[in-house]
């Protein structure tokens, strides 16, 4: 898995709340394989009109934010469907970090598995940050995961991140390796559990 330690990049404001995974990646693209560039249909129905023409008022379409690697969004970002492809779409579009007051639980778990940082900032800080990057896109944002700090110019914010995710991102850990190192424990649990809960295995239909 890819590590995330530090990042300095342009940030794009997306002032909307409840940007659920249906908005991030509409369901009709869920058939696409991982090798397809899902980034080109990120936020498709918000980004483009019914004829596929870009809407100029959508921030990611504006020249100043086209290369953004960071999104500053409203609360409950990534709620709804468990589709991990929503994370693939963000990732393929070059987004490495989303800052918001809160996130959907499943989305947050999917994000970390793909090296995407989910940074939680209080609503007032997010509003201030969004206003600042809306007024001046040039000045980049710096994110330091070790310090849990976001800085822009001489303003610094401290963000919250789930410690499990932080650990995993900083180390680039793959769950599977860690699980593998617990193989014996799993075997012992399974043997004990089959005695304790014999009814838990499916009966033969």
């Amino acid at each position: 898995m890819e590590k995330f330690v530090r990042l300095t990049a342009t940030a794009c404001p997306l002032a909307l709340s409840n940007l659920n995974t249906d908005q991030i990646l509409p369901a009709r693209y869920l058939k696409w394989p991982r090798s397809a560039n899902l980034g080109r249909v990120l936020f498709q129905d918000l980004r483009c009109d019914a004829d596929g023409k870009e809407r100029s008022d959508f921030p990611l379409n504006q020249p100043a934010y086209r290369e953004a690697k960071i999104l500053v969004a409203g609360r409950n970002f990534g709620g709804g469907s468990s589709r991990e492809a929503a994370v693939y779409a963000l990732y393929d579009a070059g987004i490495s970090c989303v800052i918001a007051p809160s996130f959907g639980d499943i989305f947050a778990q999917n994000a970390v598995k793909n090296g995407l940082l989910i940074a939680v900032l209080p609503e007032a800080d997010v509003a201030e940050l969004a206003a600042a990057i809306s007024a001046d896109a040039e000045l980049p944002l710096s994110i330091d995961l070790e310090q849990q700090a976001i800085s822009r110019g001489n303003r610094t914010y401290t963000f919250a991140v789930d410690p499990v995710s932080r650990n995993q991102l900083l180390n680039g850990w793959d769950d599977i390796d860690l699980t593998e190192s617990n193989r014996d424990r799993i075997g012992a649990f399974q043997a004990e559990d089959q005695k304790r809960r014999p009814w838990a295995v499916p009966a033969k239909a």
Partner: protein
Amino acid sequence: MNEPQTLVDKLWSSHTITQREDDAALLWVDRHYIHEGSFHAFSQMKAYGRAIAEPGLTFGVADHYVPTRGRGHAIANPEIAAMVHNLETNATQSHITLFGLDDPRQGIVHVVGPEQGLTLPGLLIVCGDSHTSTHGAFGAYAFGIGASEVAHVLMTQTLWQKKPKRMRVTVDGQAAVGVGAKDIALAIIAQVGADGAQGHAIEFAGSAITALTMEGRMTLCNMSIEAGGRCGMVAPDATTYSYVKGRPYAPSGAAFDQAVEAWSALVSDDGASFDREVSLHAATIAPIITWGTTPDDALPIDARVPDPARETDPVRAEYLRNALDYMGLTAGKKLTEIAIDRIFIGSCTNSRIEDLRAAAAVLAGRVSKVPGLISPGSSIVKRQAEEEGLDRIFRDAGLEWADSGCSMCVGINGDIVASGERCASTTNRNFRGRQGPGARTHLMSPAMVAAAAVSGHLADVRPLLAGRTP
């Protein structure tokens, strides 16, 4: 004496294999359900060069992409055919039992699991689908996961998770006739908000919850995710045991009795503490519909469309304007004056036999003023409904009776609501574009969808039930 424990704590500790320093626990997975969307996970597993760990604990269902019409013939759309075929190939290669397209047990994964007796109290159940919370209705710990986690479960039958906070939602009292589990669910979501239960496992308790049938409890737990909850659950009781008993994959005979004894301990102990408590009174809940683009935009049917001009919070006012614009609604309009273009009855929220009976009770002897589709939750539900003559009632009302699948809930099989059309729907998400690009969705119970159908506009089902058995 031991600390009193919640149901969530008991289920969590009985599945914990080990715990990491940062507090993540490695959990044992009792059941893993997969559907067509699992192809990313199988690709990941192959990329790791590994094989499935426990094929006997994994069950596949074709539901998301299956056609609801013309079954028995080849699937016309090659991309959709490939999705269904891909699942079959992966299941076969990994020796997974599959309830595939032509299996008489096929249906929506969250209907089929319980129907087959695979979903049981005390189990930890995962599926790459957010509505896996449905299975919590049995007193199981059930939650949705993403593709990387699906791959991890395939390879190890375990999952690393951080323990959620515990939230209890207590609903006491008796719900009025015409008010069902969907109304209770929407009332809860309206109260706590679409992200109100984020980071929490919800236990539903109280007399109005224990009075619910298993179908009702499944509807309720299904919607936990729409309040942002990690999972939702109801402690198992006699209602649960009698539903489970005799189902194909459930324990039987002495094993069943032994299981019931173990399941009886799956309750929150007196004095157990929750991180958060919420309570509602069932008697005050009216039939509810959603008017906007998130599930917490829910109001009683006798209310009016909210007015952004009356909103003091500018962010909220802006949201309201956008939502009304997308939904094509004017502020202040009575909800019962909103004309609809079509109806849909289906989805893992409301497509079980009881849901179909509730809709039929309203539709019997009446005609729908708009076109509509009814997709039963499983092929077994379909046959049962036909034995009960419900299909006749639906057809006589002018509605289409189709085969089982996710259908118009998510639209990826081709069953979509056209852009700009307004649909009264028993589904779970009124997100922009959920039922198709530009589609306008109003969520409600099956009885309320039936009421909207016969009225041609959103309507209160209660007067339509006068003199009938709901």
